[in-house]
């Protein structure tokens, strides 16, 4: 085994034993790249030196989590997905008196505000609650601020319109210098909090769970367990939306879901024809 691979295993053990963060079931190739990136960011030279700091320096673990999290996101990324949520999912959710939505792995909140805008435009926001969770506290803080680089606004505005937006995206933010700040009214029914999908349990009865591009970092066993967690959290007939390139064909727990729109990775809990398992 090469030395670097040994060091990575030791890193994973150190994070687990010292800080209770379990990365042992993350997909190895991208975990390795992120650890290598941490070595560059903190200029530690080797992973072993990084491990020493993980073990001995109080407060260092926060920046390690930030480095392993890479909260890259966009508003209305994959506009067809948000259009489908608007056209196929929200009309069903409209039949519930109170709508609970869990956004798992919310990064810096781009998709949280996207969802809030959809709900607002559908006239459903006042009876909705969005639980927006991530295991990266810095990302959660940024999410709750709702401040983003102005250079992203043009792309997001196009995404918004492609997703079927009915007004102008700029109605939802104020621009200042190089930044945009999302209207804080969009946050009025959002609760941001730290939740780790590896170790934490179900906390609500959800009607919709949005968890896009998070499970791609998990190996098959952890993906399967997390899908089980989602199934347990969803009401019967509740919706699950994953990233558009995710593959749940190897997960036994995916048998608890039926396709709503397979190409867009929108599923429903329970239902009749359970998904077949590929092996």
């Amino acid at each position, binding site marked *: 085994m090469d030395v670097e691979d040994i060091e990575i295993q030791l890193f994973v053990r150190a994070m687990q034993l010292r800080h209770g963060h379990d990365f042992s079931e993350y*997909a190895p190739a*991208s975990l390795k*790249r992120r650890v290598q990136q941490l070595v560059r960011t903190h200029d530690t030279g080797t992973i072993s030196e990084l491990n020493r700091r993980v073990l001995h320096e109080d407060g260092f673990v926060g920046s390690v989590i930030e480095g392993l999290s890479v909260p*890259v996101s966009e508003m209305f990324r994959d506009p067809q997905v948000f259009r489908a949520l608007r056209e196929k999912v929200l009309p069903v959710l409209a039949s519930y008196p109170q709508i609970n939505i869990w956004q798992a792995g919310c990064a810096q909140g781009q998709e949280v505000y996207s969802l809030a805008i959809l709900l607002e435009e559908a006239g459903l926001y006042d009876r909705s609650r969005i639980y927006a969770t991530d295991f990266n506290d810095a990302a959660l803080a940024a999410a709750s601020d709702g401040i983003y680089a102005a250079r992203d606004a043009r792309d997001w505005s196009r995404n918004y319109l492609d997703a079927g937006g009915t007004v102008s995206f700029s109605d939802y933010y104020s621009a200042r210098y190089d930044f945009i700040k999302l209207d804080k009214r969009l946050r009025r029914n959002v609760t941001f909090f730290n939740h780790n999908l590896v170790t934490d349990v179900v906390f609500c009865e959800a009607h919709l769970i949005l968890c896009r*591009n998070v499970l*791609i970092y998990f190996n*098959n066993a952890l*993906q399967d367990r997390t899908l089980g967690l989602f199934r347990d959290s969803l009401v019967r007939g509740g919706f699950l939306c994953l990233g558009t390139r*995710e*593959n749940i064909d190897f997960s036994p727990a995916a048998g608890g879901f039926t396709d709503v729109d397979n190409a867009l990775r929108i599923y429903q809990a329970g239902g009749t024809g359970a998904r077949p398992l590929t092996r």
Partner: protein
Amino acid sequence: MSGYDAIVVGCSAGGLAALQRMLPALDATLRTPVIVCCHTGSADVSLLVELLRRTSALPVVEARERAPIAGATVHVAPTGYHLLVEDDLHFSLSVDGKVAYSRPSIDVLFETAADAWRERLVAVLLTGANSDGANGLAAVRRAGGHAIVQDPDDAESDVMPRAGLDVAGADACLPLDAIAPHLNRLCL
């Protein structure tokens, strides 16, 4: 038995035309997987897959998350994601930041493929207008794999192959039309 288990290919500007010349000339009995990372401007890779499929000697598919990497098939990286090869030879995806201004990045594909296949990998760097792939090619060579670079004078855009030669060097530097026959000799 040939000495190589997989072929990875990287290209950007001019890449579609180059792949349309190279893939049809591969031997249809090749057993190795061919994994392609081509920067395209478009939102969806399905058009690229469709165009390549029309002329390719081997079946062409979009690379699928978690799927075992099937041989005798051309796998194309989806747009907007890095495509990674896991050591137990299935694909994974990430939306981590761009590498060399690109996602998918050729460096990410080549580096993870080099980790997985070590000296049993062939990497091909074709035409392109940026230097993504150069570091990846160096990783392939460090692991003992075989690096092929398209002759810059023959490439529609020479920046990528030149960067590859500067940073990594090559085991073979060939005009486009000589690359598929070379791959056939190496991998059959």
